[in-house]
C-alpha cells in the first residue's frame, strides 16, 4: 500500500479528499462529491467546455493537450454513439499517481467521466486500468456499483429525465503500448494493442468507430474540482497556458519519495531539495529524469527550471507524466541508459519497423558497451539509430525510446567513452545477462 506524504509547499486540489476514506460513497458525498456533475447537468455542455477551456488544464498523461479544446473537437451530431475513455493504463516508468487516485478518490474519476460525457453528448464511459492494478479495479468497481445504487449512473441520472450515463470498468493484461490512445482503443475492442494511424483522430473516429474523448485518469479526476472552483481560479494556480496543479511522483534517490501535488511551473530544484527532502544520504545529484523514463535526462546543472509543459520544452525535455526520477552520483549512466532502452525494446509492439528494430539494435549495442566490449563508434551508432527512429512511427513509443537515449549519449558522452576505455578488460557492475534479463 502506498505510503502517504505531504509537504507545506503543496497546493491541494486533487488531493483534497485523500486519506479520508473517500472511496466510500457516503464520505465522498460529505466532502462535496457529485455536486459538480449536478451543476454540469444544470448548466449544459457549452458551459462545461467553456470552464474547461478557461482552466488551462492540459492532459496529464504526458502530451499536455488542452482538455477543453480536445472536448470541443467532438462533433455535436454523430450517427455513431460517442464514448468517453479514461486511460488508467499507467505504465510510464517513474509514474504512480493514478495508482493513488484510484485508491483514495475513485469517485472523482467516475464523476469526471460523467462530466466529460455530458460535455460531448456521450452516454457511455469506460475506465481502463492497467492489469497489475487488480486491487484498484475492485475499488473502482465497488465505487461504480455504489453510484448506480444511488441513481447517479444508469437511466435518468439524478432523477433527470432523458439524462443517461453508464460506465464499464476493466483492466488490461500487461502492455505498456496500450497506454497510447489508439492502442488502448484496440485493446478495449478485444484486439492486440497495436496503434492506429492518425488522422483520423479519436475525437472523430475512435472506439468502435464513434467519436471518442480519451483522457488520462488524473485529467479526468481534476474535472469535478475545476467545475467547483471555477476555470479562472484553477488556471491562476499555475502558469500561463499551464493551468492548475498536478501530481508529481518523486522517486529514486531522494529522502522522501512520494506523490506530491504542486502548482504547474513549480521549481524542479525545490521539488527535489525541499519537497522531497533532497538527495538520499546527503549524496550529490547527478541527473534527473523529469517526467517518466521517456523524457530526456537533465544534468545536475539543469534543474533550475519550472515544472510546466512550456518551460520543460524550452529546457529540451518534457514534463511528461510527472514522474520525477532522481539519480545520485553513484549511478552509472551507461547502466541506466541500457535499463531504459531494455524496457522500450521489451514493450515495442513490433508494428512499426523503426521502433521494433531501433530499440533492439540500441539495446544490443548498449549491451555490448556495458559488457565491456564497446567501441566509441558504438556510441555514434546508438545516436544514429535513435535519430532515425524519431517521428517515423505510428505512435510515440518510438520517440519515447529514442529521446531519452539521445539525452544520455549527448549529455553524458564522456562517461560512455571513459567507460569504454576503462572497462575494456574490466568487469561491469552486473553481467549483461543479469541487467537485461534472459529473454526478458
Amino acid at each position, binding site marked *: *500500500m*502506498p*505510503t502517504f506524504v505531504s509537504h507545506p509547499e503543496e497546493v491541494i486540489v486533487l488531493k483534497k479528499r485523500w486519506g479520508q476514506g473517500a472511496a466510500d460513497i457516503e464520505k465522498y458525498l460529505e466532502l462535496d462529491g457529485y455536486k459538480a456533475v449536478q451543476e454540469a447537468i444544470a448548466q449544459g455542455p457549452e458551459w462545461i467546455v467553456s470552464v474547461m477551456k478557461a482552466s488551462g488544464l492540459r492532459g496529464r498523461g504526458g502530451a499536455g493537450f488542452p482538455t477543453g479544446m480536445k472536448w470541443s473537437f467532438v462533433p455535436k451530431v454523430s450517427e455513431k*454513439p460517442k464514448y468517453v475513455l479514461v486511460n488508467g493504463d*499507467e*505504465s*510510464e*516508468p*517513474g*509514474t*504512480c499517481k*493514478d*495508482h493513488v487516485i484510484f485508491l483514495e478518490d475513485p469517485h472523482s474519476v467516475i464523476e469526471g467521466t460523467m462530466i466529460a460525457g455530458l460535455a460531448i453528448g456521450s452516454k*457511455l464511459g469506460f475506465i481502463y486500468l492497467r*492489469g*497489475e*492494478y*487488480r*486491487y484498484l479495479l*475492485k475499488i473502482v468497481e465497488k465505487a461504480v456499483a455504489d453510484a448506480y445504487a444511488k441513481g447517479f449512473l444508469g437511466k435518468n441520472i439524478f432523477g433527470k429525465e432523458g439524462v443517461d450515463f453508464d460506465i*464499464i470498468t*476493466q*483492466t*488490461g*493484461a*500487461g*502492455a*505498456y503500448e496500450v497506454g497510447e490512445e489508439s492502442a488502448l482503443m484496440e*485493446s*478495449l*475492442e*478485444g*484486439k*492486440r*494493442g497495436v496503434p492506429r494511424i492518425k488522422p483520423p483522430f479519436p475525437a472523430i473516429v475512435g472506439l*468502435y468507430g464513434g467519436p471518442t474523448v480519451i483522457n488520462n485518469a488524473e485529467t479526468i479526476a481534476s474535472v469535478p474540482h475545476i467545475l467547483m472552483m471555477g476555470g479562472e481560479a484553477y488556471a491562476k494556480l499555475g502558469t500561463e497556458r499551464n493551468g492548475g496543479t498536478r501530481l508529481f*511522483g518523486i*522517486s*529514486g*534517490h531522494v529522502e522522501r*519519495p*512520494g*506523490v506530491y501535488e504542486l502548482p504547474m511551473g513549480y521549481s524542479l530544484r525545490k521539488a527535489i531539495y525541499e519537497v522531497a527532502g533532497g538527495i538520499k544520504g546527503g549524496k550529490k545529484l547527478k541527473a534527473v*529524469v523529469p517526467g517518466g*523514463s521517456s523524457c530526456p535526462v537533465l544534468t545536475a546543472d539543469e534543474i533550475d527550471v519550472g515544472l510546466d509543459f512550456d518551460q520543460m520544452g524550452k529546457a529540451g525535455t518534457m514534463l511528461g507524466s510527472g*514522474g520525477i*526520477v532522481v*539519480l545520485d552520483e553513484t*549511478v552509472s549512466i551507461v547502466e*541506466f541508459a541500457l*535499463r531504459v532502452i531494455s*524496457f522500450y525494446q*521489451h514493450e515495442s*509492439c513490433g508494428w512499426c519497423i523503426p521502433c521494433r528494430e531501433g530499440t533492439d539494435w540500441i539495446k544490443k549495442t548498449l549491451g555490448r558497451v556495458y559488457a565491456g566490449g564497446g567501441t566509441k563508434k558504438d556510441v555514434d551508432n546508438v545516436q544514429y539509430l535513435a535519430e532515425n527512429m524519431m517521428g517515423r512511427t505510428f505512435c510515440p513509443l518510438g520517440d519515447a525510446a529514442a529521446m531519452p537515449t539521445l539525452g544520455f549519449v549527448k549529455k553524458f558522452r564522456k562517461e560512455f567513452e571513459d567507460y569504454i576505455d576503462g572497462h575494456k578488460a574490466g568487469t561491469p557492475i*552486473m553481467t549483461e545477462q*543479469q541487467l537485461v*534479463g*534472459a*529473454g*526478458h
Partner: protein
Amino acid sequence: MSAIANSIFSPEAAARFDKLATIYPVKRSALVPMLLYAQDEIGYVSEAAIQEIAKRLDLFDLDVRNVLSYYSMLRTKPAGKYNVQVCTNISCMLRGGYEILDHCKAKLGIGHKQVTADGQFSLEEVECIGACCWAPAMQVNYDFHDDLTTIKVDAILQDYAEGRGKDVK
C-alpha cells in the same frame, strides 16, 4: 443456465463470462478480461479455455491466441501458486530492485519465469508496476508489496509459504 453447455469453468466464473459477453457494445471487447479471469481460475490460459472463450465470443481460436500472445500478464503454461513479480525498472533499480530480485532467486532457487519443484512459487522479473514512490516493490499474484528489504521479502515469502498471504483476485 450458462450460455455454454459443459463449461470448463466454475459456475461462478461461467456466470461472470455470460454477463461479460453482454455488457459491451461489441461482444469481442470482453476478450481481454475473459482471458484474465480464465487465467485466475485455471492458473494459465489452457487450450480448453481458448476454445471455450472463442465460442463464447464468436471468434476463431486463432483470434484468441493472437490476442493472448500480445499481453505479458497472460500465460499458456502454469506458474507457481504464488507468482512473485519483482520490478527492476528505473525507480526500483535505483533503490535496490536487482538486489531484491537476486535475493528471491537465491531464496526460491529459481530464475526468471521458473517454478519451484513443489509448484508453490514462480518468479518473474517485471517492468514498472506503478509503485515507483514506494520502491523497491513487487507483486505476489495481484498483491503489492512496497518499500522492500531482503528481510521484508523473507517474511513475505514465509507468509505465503505458510498460507498466510493475501491473495487478491
